[in-house]
């Protein structure tokens, strides 16, 4: 092996590059960039300004943060609903003035002052909400108008009443406490902000109105079509934003005991920047309160830090502008390209050197020699069926198969011309088996292990196993349950082929070739599911040996068949019985003569085998080519292989014409016939086996009894 090949093997098999893709599938990665920005900002200003983290300094800035966070929470909700609120600064200022006016000039109680503040926010929010939500005016222009109007009103009022406020001698301990006091070491404004944030977060993520807001922001049209009242949802986001700003304004009124011309100035720009920098999408529907708060901290630390470092307002505004621009760019590019990045990063091929296989070419003289015998099979359900991955027959000779529409279809004996939908399961029913009581057990791709009673009642048996300790993506869930078989004691042994791909993407797993296939067992006595074996390259067919003491299972991408011992000295261990086949094995089933049938879903090609030794090439292929152009194993040719108890190959049947059975994923012997299915095929084949026992049936072989 060349040095390069050894290095490739080490690089692609030892470095877990697949984790990047798995981490990117997590929703929380959206928070990573704002979080990183937060850490960097804190680090920079923390080290540049001495005493930045001193409790006194933190206390002062935390009061400001509390008020600001409230405003940002409101803006976040509006943005999540697909809008924008520029009037928060004006409302903030007016609410502050209302409180000051009621308390200092009218000399009313502090609670009345709070009510006046909130009423101001409510009125302005309702105006915004009415215009944007019900009259469908543009959010940007509408709130800009409210901003200008509110700001002008505030300036007039402040100029008119500033002196009177100065002269007032109204006092209240409650006001002082709200403005300067602490509760359990934290300022009141911080407590209020935290409570608001938590309540809003829960409302957005766990309540119907919150979901409506996200739905409207995500797509107004779809939300409308789904029956959500878009207008009122939008209306309430503005009202909520107005209330949040008003509460902030009340708090600053308490803290400063007055209202100056600068109160709430440029607040809308800061709040907007905070929300966007935090990762709340301007397009709506994406974001969270936590993100908004993160953004609020970043913006506040940045502006205060710059001021303390001696930079003027111009510089601060400039930095805010740049941050906003950067955040908007990242937001849009990320939103647009996230799935592309994920697609490109997700497939993480590994190195594998396949063993030399015997030839399967016609006239090669090997036991694997493919021929054209299967093309003579009569067809069942041609043109009606789509994707009969597995086929099975019951004691009354009726034929069952799954389809890609999630149905189990039954064809009636004796001629299999008539059919009915036996049961609708959903997913993609793959492996089938009958248990002792005649229940049809099915591995349903993308769903789990299901049981269908003779009365057509569908019951979920298992959809999960224990999660492994090192998994990033939850591997407790069964992603691709593929085939099952039932031991004499009733336990169901089944395979879950891959942890990396969903059932319909099964072919992608062959390109990656990462060994993540499992063998599992479901115990009907206590309903538990256990993982028996892990780390195989696409575990596929399972078949109980004739004596019921061991089972065979196929490892598709490695072209091997293993035997797993249920009892005896080797119980609980697996050994390889057939290796280095020229085809990729799929389902395995019993044959009447004491041997076993095995389906080949495809054939190895020299070019694909070579690509397995070039994982870097496969990686680049997945990144640079569209999926339709990717190199695949040759799954346009398959076959049926017969082997005996010791794993010796006895015979191989094929359809080299590729017309009737290009790929074979399953076959079932029944009364002298072989029924052949294929996951990408549009028919079931019925093939007469020369010299087979014409009385032998699979249910009788498993559970005894007549027929």
């Amino acid at each position: 092996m060349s040095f390069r090949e050894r290095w490739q093997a080490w690089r692609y098999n030892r470095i877990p590059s697949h984790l990047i893709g798995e981490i990117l599938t997590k929703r929380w990665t959206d928070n990573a960039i704002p979080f990183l920005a937060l850490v960097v900002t804190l680090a920079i200003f923390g080290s540049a300004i001495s005493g930045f983290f001193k409790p006194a300094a933190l206390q002062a800035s935390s009061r400001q943060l509390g008020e600001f966070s409230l405003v940002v929470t409101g803006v976040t909700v509006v943005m999540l609903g697909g809008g924008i609120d520029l009037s928060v600064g004006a409302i903030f200022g007016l609410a502050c003035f209302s409180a000051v006016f009621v308390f200092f000039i009218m000399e009313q109680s502090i609670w009345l002052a709070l009510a006046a503040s909130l009423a101001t926010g409510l009125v302005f929010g309702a105006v915004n909400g009415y215009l944007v939500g019900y009259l469908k005016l543009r959010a940007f222009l509408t709130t800009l108008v409210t901003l200008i109007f509110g700001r002008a009103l505030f300036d007039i009022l402040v100029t008119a009443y500033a002196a009177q406020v100065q002269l007032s001698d109204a006092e209240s301990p409650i006001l002082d406490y709200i403005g300067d006091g602490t509760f359990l070491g934290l300022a009141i404004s911080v407590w209020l902000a935290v409570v608001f944030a938590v309540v809003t977060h829960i409302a957005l993520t766990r309540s119907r109105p919150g979901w409506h807001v996200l739905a409207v922001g995500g797509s107004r049209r779809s939300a409308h079509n789904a029956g959500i009242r878009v207008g009122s949802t939008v209306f309430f986001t503005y009202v909520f934003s107005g209330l949040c700003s008003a509460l902030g304004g009340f708090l600053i009124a308490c803290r400063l005991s007055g209202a100056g011309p600068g109160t709430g100035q440029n607040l809308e720009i800061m709040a907007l920047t905070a929300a966007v920098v935090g990762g709340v999408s301007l397009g709506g529907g994406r974001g969270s309160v936590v993100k908004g708060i993160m953004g609020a901290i970043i913006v506040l630390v940045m502006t205060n830090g710059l001021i303390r470092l001696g930079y003027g307002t111009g510089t601060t505004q400039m930095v805010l502008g740049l941050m906003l621009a950067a955040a908007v760019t990242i937001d849009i590019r990320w939103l647009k390209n996230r799935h592309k990045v994920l697609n490109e990063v997700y497939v993480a091929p590994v190195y594998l050197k396949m063993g030399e296989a015997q030839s399967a070419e016609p006239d090669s003289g090997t036991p694997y020699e493919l021929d054209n015998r299967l093309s003579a099979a009569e067809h069942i359900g041609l043109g009606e069926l789509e994707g009969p991955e597995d086929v099975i027959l019951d004691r009354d000779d009726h034929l069952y198969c799954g389809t890609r529409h999630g149905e189990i279809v039954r064809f009636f004996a004796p001629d299999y011309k008539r059919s009915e939908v036996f049961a609708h399961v959903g997913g993609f029913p793959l492996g089938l088996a009958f248990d002792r009581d005649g229940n049809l057990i099915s591995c349903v791709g993308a769903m789990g292990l299901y049981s269908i009673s003779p009365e057509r009642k569908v019951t979920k048996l298992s959809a999960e196993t224990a999660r492994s300790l090192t998994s990033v993506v939850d591997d407790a869930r069964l992603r691709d349950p593929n085939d099952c078989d039932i031991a004499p004691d009733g336990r169901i042994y089944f395979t879950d082929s891959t942890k990396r791909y969903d059932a319909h993407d099964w072919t992608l797993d062959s390109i990656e070739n990462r060994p993540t296939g499992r063998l599992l067992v479901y115990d009907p006595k206590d309903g538990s599911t256990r993982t028996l074996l892990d780390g195989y390259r696409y575990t596929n067919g399972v078949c109980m040996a004739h004596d019921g003491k061991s089972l065979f299972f196929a490892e598709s991408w490695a072209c091997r068949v293993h035997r797993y011992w249920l009892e005896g000295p080797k119980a609980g261990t697996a050994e390889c019985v057939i290796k280095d086949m020229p085809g990729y094995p799929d389902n395995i089933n019993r044959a009447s003569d004491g041997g076993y049938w095995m389906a080949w879903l495809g054939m190895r090609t020299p070019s694909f085998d070579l690509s397995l030794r070039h994982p870097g090439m496969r990686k680049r292929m997945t990144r640079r080519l569209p999926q339709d152009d990717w190199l695949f194993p040759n799954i346009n040719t398959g076959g049926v292989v017969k082997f005996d108890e010791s794993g010796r190959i006895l015979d191989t049947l094929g359809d080299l014409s590729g017309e009737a059975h290009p790929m074979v994923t399953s076959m079932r012997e029944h009364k002298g016939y072989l029924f052949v299915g294929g996951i990408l095929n549009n028919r079931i084949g019925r093939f007469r086996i020369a010299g087979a026992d014409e009385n032998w049936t699979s249910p009788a072989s498993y559970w005894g009894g007549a027929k």
Partner: protein
Amino acid sequence: MILDPVLDLFRGNAVTIPPFDGAFRPNTRLDDARAAAPLAEADNLARLPDGLVAGSGNTLYRIEAGKEPAPFKSFGAPVAAVAVSPSGELAVATETGALHIGDREEKPHAGIGCVTALAYAADGTLWLANGSADHPRSQWSQDLMRHGSSGSVWKRAPGATSFERVADGLAFPYGLLPLDGGVVVAESWRHRLLRIGAGAPVERLAKLPGYPARLSPAPGGGAWLCLFAPRNRLIEFVLQEEHYRLDMLATVPPPYWIAPSFSSGRSFLEPLQCGGIRTMGVHKPWSPSRSYGMAVRLDEGMQPLFSLHSRANGTRHGVCSVVEEAGRLWVASRGGGCVLDIDLADLAREAR
């Protein structure tokens, strides 16, 4: 976008190929056409004064619609190219590099070992395309996969005794069309037509969606161009993958390479691409393929007018040679093993 070169470092730049569009819009005219005669590895159609001939292996056959091809002339090696002089004399090049003109056999030049095309100009000048200086004609895919560009174009003026080299450094010149004292060359590995005459070569038609083969004059002016295989993203990708490609050339038998071919899908050992998977009994005609059949009608300016196709699910692939004669188009499909006979009047009616 301006950032693309930087982003490509992280995401990999996409491999793109020209689409089958405009005059190249796919149809099934070649697959619908009547097979005039079965002929394994049909190639090298030529119009003699007394009938049509086509090459297969070492032998030239007479082709008549509806009749079994009759052997006409045999040679010691596979026929590589044929041409008919204005006086009706047949020139045949074989894979060993020998040139048979009439009954004479000669060895044109030591540097000519891979004759891919012969053509006579109206004045009797014989043009000759030498596909590669490194590989014999039978190893053309080796030449492509090794980025061969050692092809050359030669000519012999009427009466002259030796060939002179007109151009070299070409990536497999596969077709010749003498024109106004110069020649139009189909440069296969670069998917284009070049006009070679006095001065530097000029590109006449570029970004072909396939690998061009022979050119032949059309009676009404203009020409016919054959394309024997489509451009395929996977092949173009493998051409850029140094280690994989060299390992493939060294260890995989040539019929199973990821490389263009005259026919495909015959063996389960051939490479398969995702789009080529047979699903519910259907092989998608637009799926990526290693072989294709296509004849393109070019106008006098060498611009495409319309085309005839055999798509990924068809069988008339590997079209390397066509001849138009009296309103009929004869197409030799090397991969399909037959000579097709198409009524151009039908095509014109269809177009209307």
